[in-house]
């Protein structure tokens, strides 16, 4: 039999992997631990024997971890997890699983602890990481995941029309500090401009 079954549902979240599984030739994938796990974490049991590929298991793992986020954000995360090498036609790398896991962790923290959590724009970076962005009329805020942690960049539009740019580095797990920058974006914390 050569027919293919397209899996279209992974339960209530509406996860839709882009994979077709041969009915008579299920792939048996060995237990796998990606190299990126050195600065992230993923429950290894998600990489057990399966009939799907590693990329699809990774997508499912991130999806499971993101259960506290909105369906729209979860869908975007799955889209990012599914990016292939050279997805932009200019040599971009696929998004690292650890970057997605760390972004999901940070967003979950902010969603739980902020009274005014706004859905961000999630952007893949050229080198396989992820950038979390919020934009409004006067301010924008980017958390760019890099190997060392997070690069925070804020843009403030002054009353004279001049844009001011601010940057700061943060460790990967320093969620409380990152929350402070998110509150700056909301206008409830005066971190920038520095006195």
């Amino acid at each position: 039999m050569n027919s293919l079954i397209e899996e279209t549902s992974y339960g209530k979240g509406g996860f839709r992997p882009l994979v077709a599984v041969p009915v008579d030739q299920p792939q048996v994938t060995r237990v796998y631990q990606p190299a990126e796990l050195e600065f992230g974490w993923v429950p290894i049991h998600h990489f057990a024997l399966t009939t799907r590929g590693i990329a699809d298991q990774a997508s499912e793992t991130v999806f499971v971890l993101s259960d506290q986020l909105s369906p729209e954000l979860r869908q975007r995360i799955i889209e990012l997890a599914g990016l292939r090498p050279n997805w932009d036609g200019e040599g971009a790398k696929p998004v690292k699983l650890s970057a997605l896991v760390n972004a999901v962790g940070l967003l979950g923290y902010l969603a739980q602890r902020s009274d005014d959590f706004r859905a961000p724009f999630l952007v893949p970076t050229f080198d396989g990481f992820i950038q979390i962005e919020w934009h409004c009329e006067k301010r924008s805020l980017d958390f760019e995941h890099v190997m060392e942690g997070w690069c925070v960049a804020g843009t403030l539009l002054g009353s004279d029309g001049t844009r001011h740019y601010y940057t700061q580095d943060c460790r990967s797990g320093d969620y409380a500090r990152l929350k402070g920058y998110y509150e700056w974006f909301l206008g409830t914390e005066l971190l920038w401009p520095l006195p």
Partner: protein
Amino acid sequence: MAFAIEEIPDDADLFRRIHRNHINGEGVISSQAFKQPRLSVNWNKYSDPQSTAGQNSAAVTALVCGQCRGLGQTVEHTPIQNGEPFGPNQAHSEICADKSREIIRQLRDMARVVWTAPGENY
């Protein structure tokens, strides 16, 4: 005949295509669209926004060459000859130099949207 390398004037427009992953539903472009150390663009002398767009482009932006130089970037005309990958493209140019976090955001804020993909409403 090979394309000659020319000096790009300060008032030239440089078209940069924006991948659909780099623009949100409200038309806000990510700074990540301008991050590469050698940022590929098309010089408007030999190109136009529509022909700059690729299959996965959601928009095409224009940057003014002199403004890029004002940020410490160099702008090089790097035409792609016939027979080379992605060639021929006489308009191909590159905005070169390390791009700090502030520089890529300044490029983002200077970029003007000059073309959007059919069906996109920004």
